[in-house]
């Protein structure tokens, strides 16, 4: 999903991008925290993921995804943009 990747690459924080890369590996928050350098507590990882996810939403909207479309993507699992 190109738009999503574009939005991720736009993130200024390298740590945020690193967290999202680890998120793609299907790890727990605790495991993500342990793999970061320096390591981060899992609660901090949770908060950070939430913040990053919130940052990504406006970017998706900017690229033409509104809330309904995002929900439709989740439900249909097959819309490419």
């Amino acid at each position, binding site marked *: 999903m190109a738009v999503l990747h574009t939005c991720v690459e736009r993130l200024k924080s390298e740590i945020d991008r690193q967290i999202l890369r680890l998120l793609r590996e299907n790890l*727990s*928050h605790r495991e993500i925290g342990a793999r970061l350098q320096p390591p981060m507590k899992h609660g901090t990882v949770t908060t950070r*993921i939430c*913040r990053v996810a919130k940052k990504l939403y406006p970017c998706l909207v900017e690229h033409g995804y509104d809330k309904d479309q*995002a929900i439709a*993507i*989740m439900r249909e*699992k097959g*819309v490419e943009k």
Partner: protein
Amino acid sequence: MINQPDLRLIQAIMAATRIEEHELDREAAEAALGEYVERELAGEAVRETMPLVAFYIATDADMARQYAELRADLIAFEHTELPEIAFDMAAAQARVARLIEIAPEDIVRPLPTTPSQETEQDYLRRLLPVWQRSLPVYGGVFMSGTAQPLLQPVDVPDQAIPTQMDIVLGQHETGAVINGRLKPRRSDLVGVPVRLYRIEMQPQPTPICVAEVPLDRFGRFAFEQLPHDRYVIVLFIEQQLIGVMWIDL
């Protein structure tokens, strides 16, 4: 098609827009996981109505695993028809371990003398209100202090870890309550029937099934509104009588 990591990230993004940072309570999310699955299977758009749980499922592999396990359990349970099982009194008698025993550390004062079993049962009944006042409360009924006297080993087939049935007795205005839990929890035992038989002693011991409940996905079961009587709790697995516990209420 969207690949799985992208889909999870989109789900996390959508969930995150609906929660505040101070709401990121993992324990609360875990506690609501069962309700999330039930409501999801009932057709509710839970990602929108329960965004905290959705967020953790989308972003934390541990929570995603628990979610998948619970969901599979519940789906399997919904498609399982409980078999009709006859009570085998001989097998039950063969497996009877003992009456409920009382350990000194579980009561407010030590027993003055070694009591007979009947005295123990009577004493146990009289201890119920004391325990209700002094022991930790869980789900409206009290827990045994060490739980030791009410733990009953259960011979679960193909189980390397010892399994026990933990029974908690309570007393409500409407009658006695038995809350039980199989420890450790096993997903393959969801829906296994637990039957409560009242034992009619005269003219000869006769078990009369008064209730049957399935083990829930947390390994729990409960019987309520029970009049004082003698009971036996029986756990069936694959139509085999597995665990038996006699209780005098």
